[in-house]
């Protein structure tokens, strides 16, 4: 039996909704039928990736005039894809070097964390802005 989940979420562009999107991700992780790994770790990781990606869209990638953030979460068989859409000018993913291990910088860990947890991370232009696309194969 195949497992297919598609969630399409639109939220106000405000950090007060980070907890909500994180909870949605956690609940999804706990509901998966076929996943055999550490379910609590997966729940935390999906919460974290959604929180980091949405906070990034709010703080760095959105036009001041935009009021919403759109997030899609798709699971097809074992492949999880999370997309976060913004209407901003975008940023160059390759220019965002991760902080050194144990570095004392206060910012810049968000995308490093996303890249560590997810298998593939891309950031590309689409019709109305940019999309941060993150994929992970679940076992």
């Amino acid at each position, binding site marked *: 039996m195949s497992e297919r989940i598609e969630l399409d979420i639109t939220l106000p562009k405000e950090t007060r909704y*980070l907890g909500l999107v994180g909870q949605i991700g956690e609940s999804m992780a706990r509901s998966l039928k076929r996943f055999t790994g550490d379910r609590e770790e997966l729940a935390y990781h999906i919460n974290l990736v959604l929180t980091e990606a949405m906070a990034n869209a709010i703080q760095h990638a959105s036009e001041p005039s935009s009021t919403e953030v759109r997030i899609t979460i798709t699971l097809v068989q074992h492949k999880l894809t999370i997309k976060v859409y913004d209407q901003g000018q975008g940023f160059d993913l390759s220019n965002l070097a991760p902080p050194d291990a144990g570095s004392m910088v206060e910012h810049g860990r968000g995308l490093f964390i996303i890249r560590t947890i997810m298998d593939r991370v891309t950031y590309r232009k689409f019709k109305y802005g940019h999309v941060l696309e993150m994929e992970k194969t679940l076992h």
Partner: protein
Amino acid sequence: MNMEIDERGNIVLISVVEERLDAHNSTDLKTRLLSLFEDGKNNMVINLEGVRFVDSSGLGALVSGFKNASARNGNLKLAGLQPQVQSMFELTRLHRVFEIFPNSEDAIASFQP
């Protein structure tokens, strides 16, 4: 952000009473720490036992506090990390930077000469 502040001699114990320390509330913690530094406090223990989720902004606020304490010849130590929160420090290698204790009493005792 909800937090409890308790002064124990020259050490300030700050207990974060929030399930999440993230981009929504981490600035509150950073600001509160700065005002404590301005009041001359420079030895802090942050009790995170009630926190089950920390993101990069939360880590950034703690790093900010640690740097300010160090610059004033003080220290900022952490206590009561839940397993998933502890794993965030390991992921970012910040467990090598902070002194981390199982509970706040141990962290406070560690300041004694």
